[in-house]
């Protein structure tokens, strides 16, 4: 019983048929409920709208008291400032976006390559203490990052991985592998093992059967899982700030957070940078909305 946003959207009305006497009271209630929902939606969305507004306001309007909601001049200067330095070259911020792309991309590919075969093996074969192994795998993901980062920091300093992209890629891969295994095991469970058995009767080996028959069926699941892993790495902050120190390696989250370090803060720039940073995430999460429940619970809940 897969529950997804799309399913939650399915047209079937859940409501019962009210006896006629209650109908009028029912209508009044519907109006109230819709109103409450509208107010809640407005409250939830206001910060996002305010961020968008701030990013296209001129500086004097950004700091206006009382705040200007509608009558302000629109400018795209802040977005330009995100990418183009005052001298003309690219900004350090744009470099950090590039670093984020590399780190998140490579770590996602690695986590997928390591996690998908493992998920398949866990799903198909009897493994000793399988349940315990799977729980151990998920529990590594629950460790508080601030705690894990202390020994990782010392370890990286020893082996020269501190302040390198490779170091970040490795730790993000390790953080995404548990998720990939749990999420993918759900997808593999749904592909009947009989397909592989049939292929093996036809003379294929188990590995060929996996490669030729199961893997193609898993591709949509792999894509969804990879998108979530990408989002997790993209948004990650704690490892990024403690394991890097130079602008050449730093990813976008600590770089954007660094914008508020000085005495005066250019909130227009912060807003524009945040939007540039958040937009891909929103697009990607819209693409995987069907798998959102499984994705945000690290593959644990899929019902």
């Amino acid at each position, binding site marked *: 019983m897969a529950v997804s946003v799309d399913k939650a959207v399915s047209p079937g009305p859940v409501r019962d048929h009210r006896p006629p006497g209650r109908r009028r009271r029912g209508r009044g209630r519907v109006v109230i409920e819709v109103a409450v929902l509208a107010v809640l939606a407005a409250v939830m969305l206001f910060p996002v709208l305010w961020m968008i507004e701030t990013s296209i306001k001129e500086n004097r309007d950004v700091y206006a008291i009382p705040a200007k909601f509608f009558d302000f001049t629109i400018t795209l200067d802040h977005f330009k400032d995100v990418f183009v330095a005052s001298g003309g070259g690219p900004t350090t911020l744009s470099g950090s976006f590039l670093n984020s792309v590399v780190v998140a991309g490579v770590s996602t590919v690695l986590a997928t390559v390591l996690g998908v075969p493992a998920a398949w093996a866990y799903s198909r074969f009897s493994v000793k203490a399988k349940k315990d192994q799977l729980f151990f795998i998920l*529990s590594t993901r629950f460790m508080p990052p601030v705690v894990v980062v202390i020994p990782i920091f010392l370890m990286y300093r020893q082996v020269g991985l501190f302040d390198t992209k490779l170091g970040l890629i490795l730790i993000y891969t390790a953080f995404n592998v548990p998720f990939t295994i749990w999420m993918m095991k759900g997808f593999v469970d749904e592909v009947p093992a009989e397909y592989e058995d049939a292929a093996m009767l036809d003379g294929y080996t188990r590995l060929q059967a996996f490669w030729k028959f199961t893997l193609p069926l898993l591709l949509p699941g792999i894509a969804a899982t990879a998108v979530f892993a990408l989002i997790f790495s993209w948004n990650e902050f704690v490892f990024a700030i403690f394991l890097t120190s130079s602008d050449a390696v730093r990813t976008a989250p600590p770089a954007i957070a660094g914008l508020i370090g000085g005495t005066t803060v250019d909130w227009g720039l912060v807003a524009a940078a945040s939007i540039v940073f958040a937009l891909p995430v929103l697009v990607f999460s819209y693409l995987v909305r069907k798998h959102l429940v499984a994705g945000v619970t690290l593959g644990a809940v899929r019902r």
Partner: protein
Amino acid sequence: MSDPVSLTDHPVQEASATPPAPGRSRHLSDRWLTVAFISPALLLLLAMSVFPLLWALYLSFTDYSATRGGPATFVWFENFTAILTSAQVHMRAFTTLLYVVGAVTLQTVLGFSIAYLISRRVRGRGVLTTLFLVPMMLSPVVVGLFWRFMLDAQFGVINSMLGSIGLGQVEWLTKQNTALISLIVVDTWQWTPFIMLIALAGLTAVPKYLYEAASIDRASEWFRFRTITLPLVWPLLLIAVLFRAIEAFRLFDLVYILTSGGPGVSTETLSFHVYKVAFLGFNTGTASAYGILMVLIVIVLAQLYMRYLNKLKED
């Protein structure tokens, strides 16, 4: 097959049973495949998660400092007794408890209410759900920065709106007693959608015929909610709550961006305190002991979480 998730009502839990192998060789090759496919992932986890924690465990018994360098001397349980008896740590634990309980309770009540309201709507469900989910997908950095701007005492939009309806200015992030509340509010804003999403999943899974049967019996709305909806959604909701509790307990980034633990130490949670001990005080040994204690708490919570998860899967 483009949509593997909605295939079956009961996903095959243990599809593992290998068919009776006709020969020894196939069985062997299956074993070999299992090892070859699982061990790389496990090795990475051992290297990047288990080994560091074991190292932290070793350091927790020493007086090692990352800046002083030099050999570490064993002090055995001194770090642990120092932490467990420290009044400072007790205060942080209390702050963390307030924060976790406050934020998770608010999120659960709000998230479930929104899900309930949405589940009663027929039209516009998809749009509403998508809109409500936006905060959850944003990075805590973006969320923290933005709320910091909005809650600014001078030119923040929240105070500006309060001013326009004739209320006084509030120093959201710079007063001891409002800072923790602000932190709870921001966390609630970001994570209410999470509870909502999972509650909605539970609500839409409640079989319709139960409601129909109840409505034939002329059961009141409240009665139906209490005897049908709540018992059926509760197991899933509990998992969402536990998940959020673990996340809230280990939260660091939002505190770092929003208040940096201040003013004073009023918003210093355990995670933030560990960071200060480790990276500002460089008492690596003490910080490791501190971290190990936190890991123990997370392990207890995670065990609970997985126990309920198992129960849910078995039903």
